[in-house]
């Protein structure tokens, strides 16, 4: 069966204590704590794996330990021709280890596999698990004035509605940016709001004259605590709708990833028609997301004319979404076992016409943009992501495909209807902004073709299975969906009473942020915004989680004076009496 060769090879390297299979392409190997870095390194570099996600979990109720799951996507290093695992051997191998609650420490994997850095920082914030040897131990997710010993995702830590008091402004600890040494280095802050994406993120650029020599960033200003919320008060019917709201753009991809991981955990096969419609909707999402990004990449370099044209075309893709799902966003559709809304023949016919318009007009505008020498000068050679850096940090999506690495979940681990659909993976060498935008353009073309193929092969089955399934506690599985920005990986461990025990949602951009500082180096300040933009970052995605008090149902309108006063002094929170 799949995965066996990797487990066998791993067994010769380190001692594998236990092997369990979750799904046909998912296997977990339990290793001893001290073998963890070697096991992950071996699978990552020697066997050709990429780090998909890492899940810390509080399993004290189950086995009196904390657990760590390093999920590796075994697909080959892809650094040169032929450096790839055979198509039918590609799978996910999870390295699991248990941590005693007495010590709470584990050997860090980051010195051997740099891709783990953010995950291990988050593990400390959320669970208080200390990575021994982790070079960067700063906070990642929690705000700087969060109490030191409160780790929110521990089961016994706090109620999900609890909000610790904020510190006075002058008491708030300063975030420690990693500043390069040397004289003449000037700090240039970019943020707290990014100029194109209008989302919060603080970038500190360290410059020598006009050139960026290094960069550091502080994100997670809008961490919303969704994982905690889902564990505490959501059932599976509600979870899909919560997952959609992780992101404003690739929400559908999150919804299918979340629901499919719950489906996979109980081995539930959904009807072929539901699979096809899931693919269609996620490809529509890719259409409008890529058009958005290409448009913004023009806008941030001052090319408003092209930006307006691209957004004009984007409107067709929104129309398409409205036609087939009833809303401009493809929301409110995915439930466990299938879908809630079918497509009619009339809708399919009209969609095909819209697709023709999109296809023709995208070509037209792209040709015109390519013709523009000034635009090309701004894009070419800017923000280069080195192939090796991309490999080390497990970058995803157009970001890594623009560096010449053929990594696409739809191709590596075909899910749903992708087993039947034919398409070319867009890979462009170069690693600069231009390469990434070209990847997006090529994917627009392939998305149109994928949607057409799905319409042609639309199976005539039901769209939902009979909901007679049983959720088994402690089952877990992984689901992966290629969202416009890269793969979204969701991991669900099921709990009792129709609730999840642990939901880990890893959005695509999470894997792209750590390598961003390498992309900044050597560029000018004027290009900084463009480089961030070309990553197609999704701030809120990465950050998941603001809760309104539902129970008391109170709300209140603040006067300008109140609000200003509160912003200045942070005293007498006007929201306090709402709790």
């Amino acid at each position, binding site marked *: 069966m799949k995965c066996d060769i990797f487990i066998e090879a791993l067994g010769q390297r380190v001692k594998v204590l236990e092997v369990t299979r979750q799904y046909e392409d998912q296997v977990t190997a339990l290793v001893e704590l001290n073998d963890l870095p070697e096991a992950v390194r071996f699978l990552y570099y020697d066997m050709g794996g990429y780090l998909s996600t890492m899940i810390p979990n509080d399993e004290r109720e189950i086995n009196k330990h904390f657990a760590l799951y390093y999920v590796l996507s075994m697909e080959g290093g892809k650094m040169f021709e032929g450096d790839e695992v055979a198509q039918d051997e590609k799978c996910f191998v999870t390295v699991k280890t248990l941590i005693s609650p007495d010590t709470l420490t584990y050997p860090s994997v980051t010195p051997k596999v740099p891709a783990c850095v953010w995950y291990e920082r988050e593990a400390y914030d959320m669970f208080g698990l200390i990575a021994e040897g982790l070079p960067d131990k700063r906070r990642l997710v929690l705000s700087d004035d969060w109490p030191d010993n409160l780790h929110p995702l521990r089961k016994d830590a706090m109620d999900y509605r609890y909000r610790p008091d904020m510190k006075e402004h002058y008491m708030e600890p300063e975030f420690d940016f990693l500043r390069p040494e040397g004289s003449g280095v000037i700090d240039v802050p970019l943020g707290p709001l990014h100029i194109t994406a209008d989302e919060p993120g603080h970038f500190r650029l360290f410059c020598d004259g006009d050139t960026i020599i290094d960069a550091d960033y502080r994100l997670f200003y809008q961490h919303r605590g969704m994982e905690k919320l889902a564990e505490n008060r959501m059932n599976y*019917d*509600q979870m899909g*709708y919560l997952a959609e709201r992780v992101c404003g753009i690739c929400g559908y991809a999150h919804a299918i990833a979340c629901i499919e991981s719950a489906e996979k955990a109980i081995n539930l096969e959904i009807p072929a028609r539901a699979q096809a419609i899931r693919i269609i909707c996620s490809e529509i999402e890719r259409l409008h997301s890529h058009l958005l990004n290409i448009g913004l990449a023009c806008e941030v370099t001052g090319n408003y*004319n*092209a930006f307006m*044209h691209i957004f*004009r075309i984007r*409107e067709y893709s929104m*129309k398409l979404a*409205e*036609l087939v*799902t*009833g*809303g401009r966003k493809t*929301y*409110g*559709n995915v439930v466990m076992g299938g879908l*809630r809304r079918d497509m009619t023949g009339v*809708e399919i016919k009209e969609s095909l016409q819209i697709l023709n318009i999109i296809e023709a007009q995208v070509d*037209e*505008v792209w*040709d*015109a*943009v390519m*013709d*523009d020498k*000034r635009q090309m000068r701004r894009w070419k050679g800017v923000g280069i992501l080195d192939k090796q850096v991309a490999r080390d940090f497990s970058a995803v999506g157009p970001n890594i495909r623009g560096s010449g690495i053929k990594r696409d979940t739809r191709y590596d681990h075909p899910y749903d209807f992708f087993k039947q659909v034919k398409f070319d993976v867009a890979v462009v060498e170069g690693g600069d902004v231009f390469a990434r935008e070209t990847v997006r353009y090529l994917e627009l073309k392939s998305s149109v073709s994928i949607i057409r193929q799905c319409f042609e092969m639309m199976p005539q089955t039901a769209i939902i299975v009979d909901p007679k399934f049983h959720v088994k506690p402690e089952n877990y599985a992984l689901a992966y969906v290629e969202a416009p920005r890269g793969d979204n990986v969701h991991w669900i461990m099921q709990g009792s009473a129709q609730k999840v025990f642990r939901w880990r949602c890893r959005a695509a951009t999470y894997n792209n942020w750590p390598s961003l500082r390498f992309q900044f180096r050597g560029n000018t300040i004027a290009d900084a915004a463009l480089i961030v933009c070309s990553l197609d970052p999704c701030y809120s995605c990465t950050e998941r989680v603001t809760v309104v008090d*539902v129970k008391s149902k109170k*709300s209140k*309108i603040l006067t300008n004076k109140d609000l200003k006063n509160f912003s200045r002094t942070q005293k007498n929170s006007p929201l306090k009496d709402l709790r």
Partner: protein
Amino acid sequence: MMKLLDISKKYGDTTHKYPFEPYHVADNFRGKPAYIFDLCIGCAACGIACPSNAITVQLNAEQNKLIWEFDCGRCIFCGRCDEVCPTGAIRLSEEFELAVKFDKSALIQRGELEVQCCTECKKPFTAKRLVQYSFDCLSKANVSQNRLEEAKDYLRVCPTCKKNATVSNFTTGKEVVIE
């Protein structure tokens, strides 16, 4: 650069005159759920189905009205209420203009339904319309006249009292004949 201007010329105006002329949405658009008070029976199916708790069905503080309330600010337009409503009292409409200025209460829609008090314990337990609806359903079903007369009584007893009655009948050995 010039090519882009050519494209502009080719396609001309692409904007709509909205709000000066109506904007047409797709046929199966999922807009604001429209509530028809006259059809509502207060069964609370929508309240249970609603994943975001936008719809609530509760007794008011004086316990004399059953309040159906919909907060559009919480609605995610999934349409589950539409699916579960037995009488079609709630349907997704084509309305998409939902912005309000400062006054958030404008987003809230309410329906007050008469409550049925239990004939045994005198506590309110459901809406009168739901009792009537259940009776209508029964009368359309193939049920004997006798039984229908009985239904008039037991439909007005709350579940707790029914349960207690069953328990006491059972423990005292009283036999109840159901035709």
